[in-house]
């Protein structure tokens, strides 16, 4: 396939900072998956990471205030990598907070919650955070493993 530079494919989705708005993400991702022939395991990883990222922004970044905006954008530059950027206007993300979860020693030691950042790190190819003048940008990348090369387990 002919490759072009920067942002050959791009889609955007705007949400309000409500957990109920996260229901809009799955149909958006499903449409992208159809358009770009994204495999179902990759779709699962994308939906998982976006849910974790967005719920963190709503619950922690915006502290449950529902009137703020969150913008998602999708980029595929023909390099078989899928990039999702999430921009918000929340206070800068505390990188020292999440992602430092220790392994539990027993069931009672397993902390319910707090799995979001570790799951994003596990199921994406990369997680990058950058501060914006009035918010944050989180970029998640995934390899596009086409549907025909995946097998169901």
């Amino acid at each position, binding site marked *: 396939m002919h490759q072009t530079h920067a942002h050959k494919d791009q889609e955007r989705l705007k949400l309000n900072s409500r957990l109920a708005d996260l229901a809009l993400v799955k149909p958006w991702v499903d449409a992208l998956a159809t358009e770009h022939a994204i495999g179902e395991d990759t779709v699962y990883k994308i939906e998982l990471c976006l849910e*974790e990222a967005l719920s963190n922004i709503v619950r922690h970044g915006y502290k449950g205030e529902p009137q703020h905006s969150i913008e998602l954008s999708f980029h595929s530059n023909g390099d078989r990598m899928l990039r999702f950027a999430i921009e918000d206007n929340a206070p800068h993300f505390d990188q020292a907070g999440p992602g430092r979860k220790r392994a539990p020693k027993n069931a009672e030691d*397993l902390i319910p919650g707090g799995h979001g950042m570790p799951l994003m790190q596990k199921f994406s190819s990369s997680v990058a955070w950058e501060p914006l003048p009035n918010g944050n940008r989180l970029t998640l990348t995934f390899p596009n493993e086409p549907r025909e090369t995946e097998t169901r387990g």
Partner: protein
Amino acid sequence: MKLSTEELDGGITKVVLDGRLDIEGAAAIDLKMNVIAGSSKLLLLDLQEVTFLGSMGLRSIVVPAQAVRRRGGKVVIFAPVKMVEEVLKASSIDALIPIRHELADALAALA
């Protein structure tokens, strides 16, 4: 997200979950799961029809499982699909709540 229960021999409560255990799905079952965990000592969580599991869904499993274990009970996860199992393992839950893919093995884990 659907939840149904079935009482098996030996005092085992089988909880069948069906659908997406995302934020919305977790909210739909949390109360029911906590009620079940408060009255059952042997819990078989059938996840074979769960198509998606996120961290809020994990919480819906871990909190009731901890409640059961605190009362001296046991919990086993039965037949999660591949990606759901990957999420369970990535969260180290598999080391604490056993995962079994054969019903006989799951029942044995509760014996």
